């Protein structure tokens, strides 16, 4: 304790918290390959990654929300509501604009604007009105779910058949890369994950999120604009939900009251599995990406193999999220 110079870094040690999610991912890949020969085929990998892109894009935003000590339960129903509205907008302009990409552009714009507005509403209620994030987003979760049921009149909102055919490539096609296709969803997910990781790790904004999640008072006393930073986490998340919806709509061309059910569970689970602290103060985007892929692989394995019914996927995700938090707790206690 008496030396005046402080070493910049102690000897590097293998940190279980860092490699844990990666080890889990590796184990899953090996297990999957052994159980089903089709598991590692180009088609299956493309399929798994494309499907994980929706949750993945949302989970990147969720990482910022949770790191700054918040939570958003409304993302699943928000996605369903935005999807419903996007389809309504596209159908409304279908006659005047015809079957064109500008029609899709208008729908996409509507989705992004709605996402930002929805995030803003959550953010205002949490930061300015001062209601618990849990309660606010539980409330908006119910509101959006009910709204989408209402605009769909309890049934399904669909795009016209020709439009569906036209827009399908947004989800299913992309840039060919060797033996597989880098679909647009995968590409977009990758870009957002990389940007997210840089923002979290290398910008003042990411540092401020972690500071607020660790101790809001310290952040305030350090001249951090706490309300603005927290508000932005919800707005960013809303924007990303809108973006995920833009990719989702062309896949099925429809939205229904059951769209996006339990997405919030999956997104939050991915964030926690990735090593972000549930109570805030520490977050890492690459961990979230790992978590998303882990969850998708489990889902995929359940579909490919016959050990466990795929209907139990939600239950398995529930168990995983609880386990991940238990593991976080123990790590904390050891320190």
């Amino acid at each position, binding site marked *: 304790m008496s030396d005046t110079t402080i070493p910049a870094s102690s000897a590097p040690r293998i940190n279980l918290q860092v490699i844990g999610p990666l080890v889990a991912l590796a184990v899953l890949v090996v297990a999957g390959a052994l159980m089903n020969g089709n598991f590692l085929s180009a088609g299956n990998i493309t399929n798994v990654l494309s499907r994980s892109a929706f949750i993945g894009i949302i989970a990147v935003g969720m990482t910022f929300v949770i790191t700054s000590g918040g939570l958003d339960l409304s993302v699943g129903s928000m996605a369903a509501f935005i999807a419903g509205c996007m389809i309504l907008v596209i159908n409304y302009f279908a006659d005047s604009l015809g079957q064109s990409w500008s029609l899709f552009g208008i729908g996409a714009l509507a989705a992004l604007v709605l996402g930002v507005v929805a995030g803003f509403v959550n953010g205002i209620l949490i930061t300015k009105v001062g209601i618990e994030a849990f309660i606010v987003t539980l409330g908006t979760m119910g509101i959006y779910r009910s709204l989408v049921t209402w605009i769909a009149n309890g049934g399904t909102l669909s795009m016209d058949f020709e439009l569906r055919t036209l827009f399908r490539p947004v989800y299913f096609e992309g840039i060919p890369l060797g033996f597989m296709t880098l679909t647009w969803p995968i590409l977009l997910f990758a870009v957002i994950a990389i940007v997210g990781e840089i923002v979290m790790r290398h910008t003042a904004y990411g540092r401020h999120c972690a500071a607020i999640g660790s101790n809001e008072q310290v952040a305030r006393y*350090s001249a951090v604009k706490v309300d603005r930073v927290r508000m932005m986490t919800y707005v960013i998340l809303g924007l990303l939900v809108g973006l995920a919806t833009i990719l989702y709509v062309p896949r099925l061309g429809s939205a229904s009251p059951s769209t996006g059910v339990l997405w919030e569970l999956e997104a939050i689970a991915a964030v926690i599995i990735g090593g972000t602290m549930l109570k805030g103060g520490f977050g890492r985007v690459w961990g979230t990406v790992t978590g998303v892929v882990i969850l998708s692989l489990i889902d995929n394995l359940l579909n490919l193999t016959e050990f466990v019914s795929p209907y139990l996927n939600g239950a398995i995700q529930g168990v995983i999220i609880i386990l991940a938090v238990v593991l976080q707790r123990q790590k904390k206690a050891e320190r």
Partner: protein
Amino acid sequence: MSGTPVLELVHVSRSFGPVEVLHDLNFALVPGRVHALIGENGAGKSTAMKILCGYLEPTEGEVRLDGAPAHFRTAQEAEARGIAMIHQEFNLAEQLSVEENMFLGREKRKGWRLLNKAEMQAEAGALLRQLGMVADVRTRISDLSVSDKQMVEIGKALLRKVRVLVMDEPTAVLTNREASVLFDQIARLKAEGVAILYTSHKLDEIARIADDVTVLRDGNVVVHGVVGEFDEDRMARDMVGRDLKNLFPETHDPGTAKVLEIRNLSVPGRVFDLSFDLKKGEVLGLAGLVGAGRTEAMEGLMGLRPATADVQVNGKAVVIRDMADAVAAGLGYLTEDRKGRGLILGQSLTPNLTLLALKKFVRRLIDKKAEEKAMDEAIQTFDIRAPSRQVAVKNLSGGNQQKLLLAKTMLGEPEIVIIDEPTRGIDIGTKQQIYQFIRKLADEGKSVIVVSSEMAEIIGLSDRVVVMRHGRKAGELARNEITEDAVVRLAMGLDGQEYAA
């Protein structure tokens, strides 16, 4: 020393990994005597106390209770055998009432399972009145002042019929008057045959209430004896290992240019129409009793609380709505609550250092090399000592945390530095460093406001003193008028005259 010891440490050593923090400590607590354990932060006091109370096991040596080896696996076990500890950080359930806290886990029942509230309230009330506390026992803890919370902690321990009471800096958060109530209670407990271990950085207290003194330095016992053999100078010398003749640096005359003019600063319910000026190169002491509104006034000025005021910096009016505005106007504020509001305890040194002035390190992304360089400079300038930069700030001693907080505040390059309780809970060696640093700031032409409850600090540091009472300015003392008597008279309102601001 006389009497049979009730609790003893015999050849106790304790290591954390390769680091030995206590070496061969022998030490006995005798019924009816107060044993003071003193030393700088990091000397091993806390470790010794934790071993005594069952929070930690010794690596070598043993704990003896009534002469027989005792192994407390948990603090509860130690408590069941009559050993209680009063922590610096309170162990109280904030949302429960005073009475509910005092009887938590040992509630009195009547009939089948119902609580006997009346009896518990009566017993708690009687005990607390002896301690000089006036608050109702049905008050929620969160509504109590810090000193009242301390009294509840003490009351809780007394209720458990303790034989050994370990007190970790109990007066750090008390006013002089509250402290003297505490000393009366300690005298009463002594008379009842309780053995007391007492730690404090306030050496005058030790001289006043202790019977035996043990001085620790770097985990070793430096000296041990009855209190009569020590005066305050010797205690300080033994703790630090060098002479501390000039605790306070020499003052110089400040300039005459006004850098800060505050008019009618009001914080609803706490501060009323406070007005004063600050000159370039001046150290201004802000004195008053706990609760006089000093911290509230400064936090109001910094935009950390809702407040109204006309503020001029260097003759120009500024509007401060939040801390960022204050920093932009050239103000810096070092909070009195370094653990709750000053530092992120779970993070390492560098992110804590740069949080306030992070903008300086951002090109497009954060320049981590520049951050590390700033850390190097801070370690040099402020003599921050830590085992490594990667350790969480919570593992630093209070003194090093305070130096880090100072470094963080100064990184914002303030012209006007407000330091709230600069040396609370800090050992005397570090205190001296911080005093010299404050003086150096003033000599370099910066202006400093020191908010302090320690009279010696106010008198030793200030070029001028503003005294507050009940949220208002009670008076102002120039350099040659600053005496303990004058400050106290203003703080307590004894002169019967209040400045109409």
